[in-house]
């Protein structure tokens, strides 16, 4: 097989930097149209078009006509093979500055970018792990050689490596709720590191494994300096959804409150039942908390929610001013907003819930397949 000169792979991490730095990039996505319409790479300075690779088998002329000649070009497909195939033809046709996405959308979906949110009062730090391709966020609290991970992803090696680099031992893994859009790595990471796995008991009535109960008043400490993780029962997205206040400064809201939207109550099939809980959490419970808390959600829906360096965070008082989901005064309008015309449900969400309960144990390939696509946990996600 000939290697087309000038063609080079681009890793998901490199693409992440381009998106976060808002560098110009033109993407040719060669997956089929339905996959493209469902989920694609987004970025403020990213321009993207879709031409399925099977329309480019005879000639790439159709693609060349639509690609500006002066821009850096990235060809993307599901796994890599088809993008490489098309990219090689583009290079043969004389196009320069062409890359293909190494590992395709699968590796894009799995890439994690750790960013530091801030220092803690007693010398520790709080990190956010941005899963940019899927719009998911994990957190690590580190203090005095100990670490706690919140809403761990399936790619547990990333957390283990990061903790090791920081010289910390993972002592706790916590899930704000039973996830429906991605497979939790909380249990696996706890098993691998000897940590304790914590779950809200009301979300865990059907789980098949032992866990510690996340309950109000049962604070968790990290490190000798007692960084406090204070659980706040905040139902609505699920019946057990629990928020955490870390170090009296940060409010980890899970899938209840996002930066530009709010959580949806329907992913466990209980939309009508949970509307009241969601309303109460957002319009009463959170109102009673210190308004200068920094909100750190478990998801983002749009690239516009990414701040400096990719950080997703906002002050609670600012969200009460700007977030449309917190500004629906009429209860009936609220009920309709969170139950009617919701976006499609996340891919394989029922199987994902079963996996997170320990009821089914798909292999790694199957888990990867189940997680394909956007998270769609917010009311306002398209």
């Amino acid at each position, binding site marked *: 097989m000939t290697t087309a000169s000038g063609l080079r792979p681009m890793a998901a991490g490199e693409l992440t930097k381009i998106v976060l730095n808002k560098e110009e990039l033109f993407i040719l996505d060669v997956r*089929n149209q339905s996959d493209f319409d469902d989920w694609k790479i987004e970025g403020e300075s990213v321009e993207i078009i879709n031409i399925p*690779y*099977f329309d480019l088998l005879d000639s790439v002329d159709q693609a060349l006509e639509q690609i500006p000649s002066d821009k850096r070009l990235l060809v993307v*497909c*599901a*796994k890599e093979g088809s993008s490489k*195939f098309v990219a090689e033809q583009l290079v043969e046709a004389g196009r320069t500055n062409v890359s293909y996405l190494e590992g395709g959308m699968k590796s894009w979906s799995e890439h994690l970018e750790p960013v530091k949110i801030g220092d803690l009062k007693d010398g520790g730090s709080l990190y956010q792990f941005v899963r940019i391709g899927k719009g998911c966020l994990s957190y690590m609290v580190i203090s005095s050689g100990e670490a706690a991970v919140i809403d761990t992803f399936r790619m547990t090696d990333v957390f283990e490596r990061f903790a090791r680099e920081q010289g910390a031992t993972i002592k706790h893994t916590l899930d704000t709720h039973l996830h429906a859009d991605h497979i939790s790595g909380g249990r696996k990471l706890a098993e691998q590191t000897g940590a304790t796995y914590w779950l809200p008991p009301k979300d865990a009535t059907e789980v098949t494994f032992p866990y510690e109960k996340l309950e109000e008043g049962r604070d968790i400490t990290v490190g000798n300096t007692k960084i406090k993780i204070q659980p706040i029962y905040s139902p609505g997205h699920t019946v057990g959804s629990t928020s955490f206040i870390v170090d009296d400064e940060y409010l980890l809201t899970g899938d209840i409150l996002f930066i530009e939207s709010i959580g949806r109550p329907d992913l466990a099939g209980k939309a009508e039942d949970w509307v009241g809980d969601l309303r109460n959490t957002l319009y009463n419970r959170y109102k009673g908390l210190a308004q200068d808390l920094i909100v750190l959600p478990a998801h983002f829906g749009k690239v516009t929610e990414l701040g400096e360096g990719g950080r997703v965070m906002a002050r609670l008082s600012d969200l009460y001013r700007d977030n449309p989901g917190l500004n629906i005064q009429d209860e009936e309008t609220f009920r309709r907003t969170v139950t009617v015309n919701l976006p499609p449900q996340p891919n394989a969400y029922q199987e994902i819930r079963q996996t997170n309960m320990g009821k089914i144990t798909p292999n790694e390939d199957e888990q990867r*397949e189940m997680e394909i696509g956007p998270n769609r946990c917010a009311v306002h996600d398209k």
Partner: protein
Amino acid sequence: MTTHPEIKADQTLDCKGLACPMPIVKTKKAMDQLQSGQVIEVQATDKGSLADIQGWAKNTGHQYLGTIQDGNVLRHFIRKSSADEIKEEKKYPHTVTNEELEKKLGNVTVLDVREPAEYAFNRIPGAVSIPLGELEERLGELNPDDDIHVVCRTGTRSDLACQLLAEKGFKNVKNVKPGMYGWSGPTEKDFQI
């Protein structure tokens, strides 16, 4: 493991173990060698091949018939279309619309003259299957006095079938237009994926 009844295909293409884009690349090459109307079976293990082969068939005008899953092997069936197939050609004068047939279901004999693979994946419930190519030798299976409504995909093959039946003395024969292409009435099939 469940075994499926065999579906006749004119060619079987082995794409097992191949990753995207190769199943489609090989299918396209094989398709170029086939005659219009012939059916190819593509065996692939790449899960992505399902959506891709449907997309490719739609964009090229070939007819995607369906897919059977045997263990981890996906067996895709595609029929090669010809350019004139979707063109309307009226030869046999007695026609009914899909909607008219839908109202008469149960009171008439529906004769489906498409290939067995097409019939297996999607058909009108109770339809009798005799592919156009076998119709002449299998006339004995039909009653010349019955009210026979002939369907194919677009009305072209059924038109030829109607002419043949009329020639052989069948009195009450109607060509259903357009046929399965655009049929919104009840259907049944042999397989569920």
